[in-house]
């Protein structure tokens, strides 16, 4: 299914639909960022018998190219509310919407949902998360604002961009490094050395490494190194990481994801270097810009890691 890629393309389609019907019309656009859908809606008031008759004769149906459409919904509002069903069919690459059932109503709406290209969404909004906290060590500043309200205003009297995502990349490698005790790192380094050294003449060094390893293992207690590392990786799951972050002001926390430095599909033990914290906000013509703060409770995170090795 092809996707809507720019405002011009969208407005073209809207014009086709809107101009097909006579009556008082109000065009709106609702973008559901979570679903990647743009829902164009037109509310049409046709309370004059003559208009209904003319519409019935000349525009009993409308046609839109099928490829871009995700869903079409027709709803009657007045004199009584009703969802109109069974009035859409596909023919020869086109979607045909039969309007005759809708013309029974004085006020009805047609909603056409389109798949939106990600780039199109990004062309509508300029968003930023501060790359790293520099002034205050735990705060990531978030903002989002409409880039091109004039383009949207041409086609719609109302625009709602719902749950636009802004991602803050939280670099966590340094916190892990700081809170995993040196003896654990040394132990890892010795283990790696022991595995890597396949030189049979290096036996003196190997014995020394083994001795040091036994010494360090005592510090770990009864639990093995791999179990400790597994516990650590559990702290670093995106779901668990959500406990250390929160948002204030116009943004609400959506979810955390592992940073792209690790290939998630591998699904094995991983220590991510960063976490992506995704927050969302709504924008519209009345509130064309939003700002907020994502707070990363690094001290709580530090404590949990260092507690693992106590």
């Amino acid at each position, binding site marked *: 299914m092809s996707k809507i890629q720019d405002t011009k393309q969208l407005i073209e389609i809207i014009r086709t639909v809107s101009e097909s019907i006579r009556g008082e019309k109000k065009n709106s656009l609702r973008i559901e960022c979570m679903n990647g859908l743009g829902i164009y809606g037109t509310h049409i008031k046709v309370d004059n018998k003559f208009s209904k008759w003319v519409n019935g004769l000349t525009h009993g149906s409308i046609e839109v190219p099928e490829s871009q459409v995700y869903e079409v919904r027709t709803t009657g509002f007045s004199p009584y509310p009703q969802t109109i069903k069974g009035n859409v069919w596909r023919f020869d690459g086109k979607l045909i919407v039969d309007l005759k059932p809708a013309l029974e109503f004085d006020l009805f709406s047609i909603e056409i949902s389109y798949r939106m290209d990600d780039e199109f969404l990004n062309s509508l909004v300029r968003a930023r998360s501060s790359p790293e906290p520099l002034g205050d060590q735990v705060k990531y500043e978030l*903002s989002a604002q409409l880039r091109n309200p004039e383009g949207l205003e041409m086609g719609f009297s109302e625009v709602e961009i719902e749950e636009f995502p802004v991602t803050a990349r939280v670099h966590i*490698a340094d916190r892990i490094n700081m809170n995993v005790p040196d003896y654990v790192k040394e132990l890892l380094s010795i283990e790696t050395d022991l595995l890597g050294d396949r030189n049979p003449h290096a036996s003196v060094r190997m014995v020394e490494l083994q001795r040091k390893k036994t010494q360090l293992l005592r510090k770990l207690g009864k639990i093995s190194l791999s179990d400790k*590392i597994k516990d650590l990786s559990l702290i670093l799951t995106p779901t668990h990481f959500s406990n250390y972050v929160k948002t204030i002001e116009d943004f609400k926390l959506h979810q955390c994801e592992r940073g792209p430095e690790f290939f998630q599909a591998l699904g094995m033990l991983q220590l991510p270097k960063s976490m992506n914290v995704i927050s969302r906000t709504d924008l519209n013509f009345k509130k064309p810009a939003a700002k907020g703060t994502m707070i990363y409770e690094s001290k709580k995170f530090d404590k949990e890691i260092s507690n693992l090795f106590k």
Partner: protein
Amino acid sequence: MVCSNEHTEDIDFFLGEDIIQGENIPFYLLWKGADPKEITLELSGFKSIVELHNAIKSRTVVKEGKTVVSGFYVPGYLGGLLSTEITNIPINYGSLTLNILEKNGSIKSLNAIRKMYTTRLDLKEFPEDISIGDSKVENKISIELKGNTTVFLGIEEMEKNECEIDIPSEVKAIFIKFYESIQKGVNELKEDFPEHQETLELFLVIPDTKVSVTQFIEKYGEKIKESFKDEIFLDAFSTIFITALFEQVGIEDRILKPLNEYFESNADDKAYFLNPLLQIRVPAGGCLMAIKIKANDLLKQESNEVEIKVPLKANEETYKPLKDLFLITRNIYE
């Protein structure tokens, strides 16, 4: 009236904070009530205005470095984007002043000042030569990070370099085995997914072998996720990676080595080596090490580089992790 406060009841003036030099920074102004006649924007420290949002007319008075905006499509809103430049100053300042001329002739002035950060590498101490032996390196090359931002340190060989720099042979051997398995899988995939042939070809070109398995996965993992929207293909491709890892690489190599690499990469607070496993081979008699160290920030911009030429001495052939030759410290700026 001069108002230095950014937020009043009727006005919300926003300018992004925590700026890394070179970054583009958004600003906006929201107001209640009637639109003003015009708004004049004055920049200092920022490079230029790269985007204006919701302005019907704008003109730049080049002489005075001002941009005058009038008319707004949607009432109560003006937005935009300012560009910044990488400088050699760890913290410099940028200011944006908005002079709002109301229709009744009154003028309201708003101003915001922001710090813009970068980190530069400074070669602090430079030994005449370095002796490499079994024990720790005594006279290290001292590099100071001047600034507060996160840096990733990359090492490049220069033309005059005589010392062999590579990753340890066992890491290389694992990578080669792993990569051979990937190539085999990719060749098979080419038949099943001819439409993705071009992307697959990328994986058949022998990459720079001075990488570990972890680095290879990090580098290509991102590319794969970005470019492969076809989920069935992505699944098939991921399977190749997993198979390559599980078949060719032992459990210790899958877990211990990457973990070790992970910890080794830390050079200082918020400073990382891009390739912490690189080691240097110093033959008996020594060699001249000639390298460049480059610093990248979180936006993948390069701030500066330092060139290092130093003779390394050894009594017998010695291998040493390259990063052990450096002492990295940071000078934080307020």
